[in-house]
């Protein structure tokens, strides 16, 4: 016999935080509360069918129409094939191709995980600049009180929604690794804790792509980029000393040193 606890498979959402919360005491962080989106294939299919992909060309804007299907794909509630088939049926032209290309990143990362196994949890390559990273996630970052309205919002969104737009993930990762000098694994762990779509392949390998341990150069942004793709959301009223306000050339020298 085992000392297992059994849970009925038909708890209603109203009962979920209390009953599941008790069954999993000591096994989770934060408050027991429902996820921002309902889990399960039925909900995933409804989200897929409701998504037309119209405007996906603007996917890099926070206001862009991205599918938000990643949490369903991650848990196998939807399959990559059926999402691709849906896109081929309802989308047109370059938008369709662009979406299918993004979807293919997920397949690529799964296959890299198959190829590399647990190695994806360490640097796959040397960083492409003289990096000296610390291991610990700074408290002000975790607690969303860096004083930078944008960076604080990225963490707040992550914790509140369990989902972040790809550009917010990229900005946050670049900020943490390049500006704060933190090892990507701490960011990976924070994402794994909160993302509904958090997995080993996409999460670790995307962090490595930003950090330049699985790419040819580090990813970074400047203030202009944040301002543009967020529609001025934070920059318009920001009074903080902005660490991102410089040209790409200046930031490159400041963050990575002069490169050969």
């Amino acid at each position: 016999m085992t000392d297992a606890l059994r849970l009925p498979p038909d708890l209603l959402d109203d009962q979920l935080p209390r009953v599941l919360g008790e069954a999993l005491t000591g096994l989770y962080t934060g408050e027991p509360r429902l996820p921002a989106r309902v889990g399960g294939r039925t909900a995933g299919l409804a989200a897929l069918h409701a998504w037309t992909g119209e405007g996906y060309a603007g996917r890099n804007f926070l206001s862009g129409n991205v599918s938000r299907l990643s949490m369903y794909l991650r848990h196998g509630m939807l399959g990559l094939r059926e999402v691709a088939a849906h896109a081929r049926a309802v989308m047109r032209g370059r938008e369709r191709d662009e979406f299918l290309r993004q979807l293919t990143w997920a397949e690529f990362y799964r296959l890299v995980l198959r190829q590399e196994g647990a190695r994806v949890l360490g640097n796959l390559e040397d960083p492409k600049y003289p990096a000296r990273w610390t291991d610990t996630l700074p408290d002000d970052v975790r607690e969303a009180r860096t004083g930078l309205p944008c960076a604080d919002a990225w963490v707040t969104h992550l914790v509140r929604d369990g989902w972040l737009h790809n550009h917010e993930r990229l900005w946050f990762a670049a900020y943490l690794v390049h500006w704060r000098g933190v090892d990507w694994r701490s960011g990976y762990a924070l994402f794994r804790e909160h993302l509904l779509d958090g997995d080993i392949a996409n999460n670790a390998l995307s962090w490595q792509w930003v950090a330049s341990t699985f790419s040819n150069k580090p990813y970074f942004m400047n203030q202009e980029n944040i301002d543009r793709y967020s529609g001025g959301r934070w920059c318009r009223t920001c009074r903080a000393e902005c660490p991102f306000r410089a040209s790409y050339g200046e930031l490159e020298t400041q963050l990575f040193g002069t490169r050969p």
Partner: protein
Amino acid sequence: MTAAQARRVVWIHGDSLSVTDPALSACPDAPALFVFDRPFLQAVPVAFPRLAFMYQGVRDLAAHRPGLTEIRVGAVPDELAAFAAAHHAAELHVTRNFTPDFARIVDGLRAARPDLRIIIHEPERLTSFDGPLRRFFGFWKKVEREVLHGEPAPDFPRRGHR
């Protein structure tokens, strides 16, 4: 239910939370088990909403399949071994994923129950590419046609489906 089916159980894990999962579709009537992995969750911080999202996934598939679906909290290999024993199962079916945890659990189960046949179903793939990988761009060039048009490029061998 045939005798052969009565002797199978299915392991449902966090990457296979759908009735369309290959292992579940291969054994629609077999008892299936999902385990919240206690040692893993004790070691690795995960916020509650994610666990609730997974619960909802199991609940949804339990409502859509004829077989029994159980949810437990414990050590996965131990629970799978006990579940298989309770159902007098000779076979356990599961869909592969590529995480190190999957391999660890399968090894643990093999050690605990050497007599239990573990049948591993291959997960669905978007492409048929099977070569070595390095950068996305090179990969994309190889699979572009297949992904965009839903059919493999002519010079690509089709993957065998089992």
